[in-house]
Structures are given as C-alpha cells and as structure tokens.
C-alpha cells in the first residue's frame, strides 16, 4: 500500500464520519420537529449506523491491503458478511423498539449513505494513486 493510498483512506474515513455527523445534526433537528424526541433519536441512530458500516468497509480494505492477497480478500469479504448479518440483527431489534420513528430513521440512513458515497467518489477521483507502490 502506497503512502497516497494511506492518505486517501484516512481522508475517506475522516470525511465520512464528519459528513455522517452533519447529517445526524440536520436529521436530528428535522426529526425533532417532525416526531419529537423519538425523531431525534431515530435520526441519530440512522446516521450512526451508516457511519459505522461505511467506515468498516473502508477500514477493511485499508488494513486488508497491508496483508497478502488471500488475507486481503478474506478480511474484506469476511468483514462484509459479518457486517450484513450484524446490520440485519440491529434492524430487527430496532423495528421492535418503541422509541423509534421509522420514516425518520430510514430517510436519515439513506441520506447518509448517499452522502458518504458521494464523498468516497470525490476523494477517489481526486487521489493520485501511483501505479508502482513506494
């Protein structure tokens, strides 16, 4: 892994968390006016879920790329599998919760996902990854 790739992944993680925090604030404000405290909590949970799961993907590729090729794919795909199963359990638990406002959580989650995807794309497009590692 080159220094440029390290810098790029560091920027992706920092910007992704910052953007999710911003969306959590904005979504929490809107959620609070729409559904009171339940809306605020739902927006915070929705944005946090995206921050955690989006960051884990970037981290698995970042640290996986320091391993041999088999370890890289094992870490990335294993991480993906564990993440999807974990996410299913979290969602199943939250749908039963009484302190959740479903639409607020869903739309905050979707907004945070689209936002982090846009940030990821911009960072990758701006990154200068050398063909030969240093």
């Amino acid at each position, binding site marked *: 892994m080159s220094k440029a790739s390290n810098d790029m992944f560091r920027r992706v993680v920092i910007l992704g968390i910052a953007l999710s925090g911003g969306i959590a604030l904005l979504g929490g404000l809107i959620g609070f006016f729409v559904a009171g405290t339940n809306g605020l909590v739902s927006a915070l949970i929705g944005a946090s879920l995206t921050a955690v799961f989006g960051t884990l993907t970037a981290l698995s590729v970042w640290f996986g790329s320091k391993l041999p090729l088999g370890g890289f794919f094992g870490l990335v795909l294993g991480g993906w599998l564990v993440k999807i199963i974990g996410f*299913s359990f979290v969602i199943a638990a939250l749908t039963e919760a009484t302190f959740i406002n479903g639409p607020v959580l869903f739309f905050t989650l979707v907004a945070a996902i689209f936002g982090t995807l846009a940030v990821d794309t911009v960072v990758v497009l701006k990154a200068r990854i050398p063909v030969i590692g240093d």
Partner: protein
Amino acid sequence: MDVTTVAELSGNIAVVGYGLAAIGPGIGVGLVVSKTIESIARQPELAAKLQVTMWLGIAFTEALALIGLATPFIFA
C-alpha cells in the same frame, strides 16, 4: 366444484424481502471481487489501484443492501 387448499404457507413475507436484499448485493460484490482477482492475476503491479477501485464498487453495491434491509422502517 369444491375449492380445496393444496398448500398453505404461513409466516412473515418480510423475510423474503430480507433475502432479496441480501442476494442481489451478494451477487454484485461477488462479481466485483472476482473481476478484481482476475485483473490482479493479469497485472499484479496494478494491485493497489485495483483494490481502491474495488472498494468503491463494493461501497456502491453494499449501499443497496443497507437500504434494502432498512425498508421495514417505512413499509412495515
């Protein structure tokens, strides 16, 4: 003619939704990774660039999975 019940299914249809939300992105991520392995085998010197591109492909594909799994919040 009498109507008879040949087969009866019981349970929550949302489970089928969970399955669909997992199978599509599962195939997508599999394709992204298989093509990356193929490309690295052809040109190992491009591994760093290909890994970054693969990560972007996985991020877009898993977005579908996350949105699909979260749909019970609006459709339930």
